[in-house]
């Protein structure tokens, strides 16, 4: 029997990984016994005894930690979905402005992209919250009559109230992600052969119809993968909610770790919740992708 060097390398590598993992587990179990933390998830069903400002489903402080975490997960999902839509709208608009005919619009959107992309998201979020919303103090802005009012308590649009925390996270995430989406859109449209523009123009279509019916459908396969990864980034970035006081999954997990003193269990829960969020988004994009490709084949 002859064992090739490839198999030896693999076996050695596997052994190395196993040893590494075992050493780490060994250390952690020694540390856990030494500090008396232990490892269990029983605490999940004890009452949380902290209130939440925003909860999509009924919640009271006497509900369990598990329920509080679920509220956090839903809050995360909520802000992700809203920002995802808003970011796409702004991003497509900026992306189209970047390649439009109007020189000034091109310059302004390029300026927008560099300012947004070259400053940290965390700083932008604090800016939106502390400067854009909280600086309003007593003033209430009503740009379009009574339909929309903006104050330091948040946004009220047609009777729907969004808290200042939620709104600033929504705006911050959307604006930040839109700058990246704009580049994805621009790249996608530029990938379409320039001759296509001339050919529909020669057919007498105007730019808007041509863009909508001819260019964008062809650009979509190039845009979608980039868009998906931007959406996944947005989901991950939503954890910065803690800096503006929005109760997302990370913030609630943070509070719970502090109250229960169980960092490892909390960390595992955080990872699992992100696994689900990611599956949610990538599967959703997959469905959109198949919808588009199948409609194109018809």
């Amino acid at each position, binding site marked *: 029997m002859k064992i090739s060097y490839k198999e030896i390398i693999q076996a050695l590598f596997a052994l190395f990984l196993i040893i590494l993992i075992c050493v780490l587990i060994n250390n952690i179990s020694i540390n856990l016994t030494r500090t008396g933390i232990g490892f269990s998830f029983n605490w999940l069903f004890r009452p949380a005894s902290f209130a939440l400002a925003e909860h999509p489903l009924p919640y009271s402080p006497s509900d369990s930690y598990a329920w509080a975490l679920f509220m956090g997960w839903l809050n995360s999902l909520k802000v992700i979905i809203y920002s995802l839509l808003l970011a796409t709208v702004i991003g497509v608009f900026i992306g189209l402005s970047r390649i439009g005919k109007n020189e000034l619009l091109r310059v302004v959107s390029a300026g927008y992209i560099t300012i947004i992309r070259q400053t940290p998201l965390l700083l932008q979020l604090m800016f939106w919250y502390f400067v854009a919303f909280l600086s*309003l103090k007593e003033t209430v802005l009503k740009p379009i009559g009574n339909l929309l009012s903006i104050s330091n308590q948040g946004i009220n649009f047609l009777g729907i109230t969004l808290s*200042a925390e939620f709104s600033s996270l929504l705006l911050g995430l959307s604006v930040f992600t839109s700058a990246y989406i704009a580049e994805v859109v621009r790249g996608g449209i530029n990938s379409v052969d320039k001759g296509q523009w001339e050919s529909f123009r020669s057919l007498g279509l105007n730019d808007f119809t041509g863009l909508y019916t001819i260019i964008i459908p062809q650009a979509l396969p190039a845009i979608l993968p980039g868009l998906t990864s931007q959406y996944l980034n947005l989901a991950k970035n939503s954890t910065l909610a803690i*800096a503006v*006081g929005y*109760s997302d999954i990370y913030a609630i997990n943070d*509070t719970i770790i502090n109250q229960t003193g169980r960092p490892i269990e909390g960390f595992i829960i955080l990872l699992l919740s992100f696994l689900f969020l990611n599956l949610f988004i990538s599967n959703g994009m997959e469905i959109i992708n198949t919808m588009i490709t199948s409609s194109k084949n018809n």
Partner: protein
Amino acid sequence: MRRIFTGILTFSMLLTGCVNSSVGIQSRLELIKKRDSLICGVSGKIPGFSFLNSNGNYEGLDVDICKAFAAAFVGNSKKVQFRPLTAAERFTAIRTGEIDLLSRNTTFNLSRDSSKGNSLIFAPVVFHDGQGLMVKTSSKINKLEDLAKRSICVGSGTTTEQNINDAFEAKSLPYIPIKYQDLNQVVAGYLQGRCSAMTSDRSQLAAARSGFRNPKDHIILNDVLSKEPLAPASAGGDQLLSDAMRWVVFALFTAEEKGITQANINQQLQLAKNNPQMKPLRRFLGIEGDLGEKIGLPNDFVVKIIASTGNYGEIYNRHLGPNSKVPIPRGLNEIYNQGGLHFAPPFN
């Protein structure tokens, strides 16, 4: 599950030769001495207690307590490293050994002290506080009930958060908690009108208010929501370190009681050396007996502390006294014979 876990564990122990699981658990105090410096967890963001001044140094009451510990443990109040910690990460930091001890506005309570809870050991209380609420004078809010259905700014992961919840739940009043990571964000949220009130320990409210442009526009409500005895803490199960910490704090109280200050410590030392009949003073300053040795410290640890930070009253006045930037009346924080709660058992 447990069987798999133990299986992996034994396997890994075999692999690594770590079969002797009885690792020599030494006291953290030995580690501090060996390292020749103390790692102290502070907030770093509370005026008067611990914050970064423009020279880039931490200062405040909590910071000076750390310096006193360093003076006693390694003989030099400068050999201390400060780790700024958020409220949420402080206990994890102490458990994982990231810091030696915590001097960070931490409330002493049962679940933090117990081995089944956060498993800490608390030193004596260095500041007696109580949770309060601050509102704008113009808001006409006078009591807890006026805050029903209003939003309240609160620091997350703190007992503050639980206390405000208890107070409102007891009266079945609904309210909206707006949670921030640290106090200066709470202050910002409150000042900019995001919340009708902010809640924190009353000392912190006073500290924050003293920094406002118009302190008179804000009042602290009379409702005291809780007792907040703030104390330094160390990891549970380490008697050597916790004893040393306890007696360092007591030494600060005793020095004030005996009128020993940073300015007169050398005179007092000479006095004690020259007068064999002054037994209590000689024991306290380590000229006679072996009180220091019993808690793992040099016998003259008190002298080192007082020479570098002064007694409790001096520390208090430096950071919270009438001439400081954050004046807070001493009240409960006087020594017991002045009507306060600070009392040290005898150094015998």
